[in-house]
């Protein structure tokens, strides 16, 4: 078991490092500079990758939350927590890169563009989820409560997206032409390849971080148990 997981770790690591350099090369050197927007457009490769991972991480939280409700399991509880923590980081990066993108292309730091706004709300839900996990009590209790909140949060995200998109189109229809090309309308093939590769790289990064985080958390748990055992032995 530990041998297999060791191999997976190595595999992830040795895929991650070269593909990261390759991604950087693709993004900054190989792919053409966009004519209208210029160099700032490059941020878009990381922005989309991080946004994808931010939502993926939340789906993973939801998945482990459901499993945890069906049968409480320490490993699932840890996995959900780590996924949420990584999710917060990627959501933050998405928001920041989105703001820089917005400043350079629309000359505004913030716009209530549905995807960006949903990401902001997602960030708040993540943070709330982590607050629930910080409650006092036995881990089973917290696992159950946080799982319940994770599920409710998961249900909420698509509704938020729908509501915000509706709100925007009903009031002031989308005026930013560039806003639409994020989904890849008339994108050059080199750009598309670069985009897909950077999404791949960031997903591998997520998987790598996830495994490391879970490992560290398990170690922490082992240390805590050993400590408790030592204390109870000293006391008796």
């Amino acid at each position: 078991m530990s041998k297999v997981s060791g191999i997976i770790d190595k595999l992830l690591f040795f895929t991650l490092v070269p593909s990261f350099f390759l991604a950087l090369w693709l993004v900054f050197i190989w792919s053409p500079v966009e004519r209208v927007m210029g160099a700032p457009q490059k941020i878009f490769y990381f922005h989309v990758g991080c946004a994808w991972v931010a939502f993926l991480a939340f789906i993973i939280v939801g998945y482990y939350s459901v499993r945890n409700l069906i049968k409480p399991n320490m490993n699932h509880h840890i996995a959900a927590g780590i996924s949420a923590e990584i999710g917060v980081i990627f959501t933050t990066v998405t928001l920041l890169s989105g703001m820089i993108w917005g400043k350079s292309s629309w000359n505004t730091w913030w716009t209530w563009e549905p995807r960006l706004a949903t990401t902001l709300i997602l960030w708040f839900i993540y943070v709330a989820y982590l607050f629930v996990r910080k409650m006092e009590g036995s881990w089973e209790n917290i696992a159950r409560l946080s799982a319940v909140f994770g599920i409710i949060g998961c249900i909420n995200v698509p509704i938020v997206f729908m509501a915000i998109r509706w709100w925007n189109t009903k009031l002031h229809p989308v005026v930013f032409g560039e806003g639409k090309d994020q989904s890849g309308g008339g994108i050059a093939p080199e750009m598309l390849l670069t985009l897909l590769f950077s999404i791949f790289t960031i997903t591998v990064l997520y998987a790598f971080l996830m495994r490391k985080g879970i490992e560290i958390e398990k170690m922490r748990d082992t240390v805590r148990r050993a400590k408790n055992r030592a204390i109870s032995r000293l006391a008796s």
Partner: protein
Amino acid sequence: MSILIDAWTIAWKDLSNELKTKQTIGMMVIFSSLVILVFSFAFDPTNNMVKAVIPGLVWLITIFSGILGLNRSFLSEHENDCLTGLRSAPIDPSSIYLGKVLANFIVVTVVQVISIPVLFILFDYRFLGAILWFMLIVIVGTFGFIIVGTFLAALAANAKNSEMLLPVLLLPLLSPLMIAAVQGTRIVLENQDISDAISWLQLMAAYDLLFLAACFFLFEFIMEGS
């Protein structure tokens, strides 16, 4: 059927208690009036801006004062560990949830009946919209707020700092409902095309039903445990 009867018994216990003391409702009314007061300093009520902020204010005072009541609703059950008493009674745990939703909904509605007219008066707002549609939107929106709020209040009551935790958990989840409610209210108050308001109303109704079902089934998990 017995779920509903039990739920009403629990709701009536809270409501009759509230009728006697009038403490929570009184606090909530005063608080929402204070929020209106603070906002009238922030946005000059004599200004033309009033029209633009009124729909948002209706919901702001509802949520701010509602959170006060929601905090109380499960903390009061932790005195003398009454919640354990309820759990050891021969009732479905979901009836506790339904009962609390019912009681909270009625309390918040009563507060709205007082505070929304106060808002209109203090901001010198002439109501010209369709009153029935306005009431429908307010009721559907408030119901959704209470559904999620009661559920999260029960969840947060497990924490030591539940008063602080509740808004942090609740507000992000309320965001789609609030967008719909504020937009719907604005359309009705400005006498625009009602069919737009109806589509917002549909979104709110879908939100209400979805979360009512989800919370109803998940509530059992919150009640379980030591």
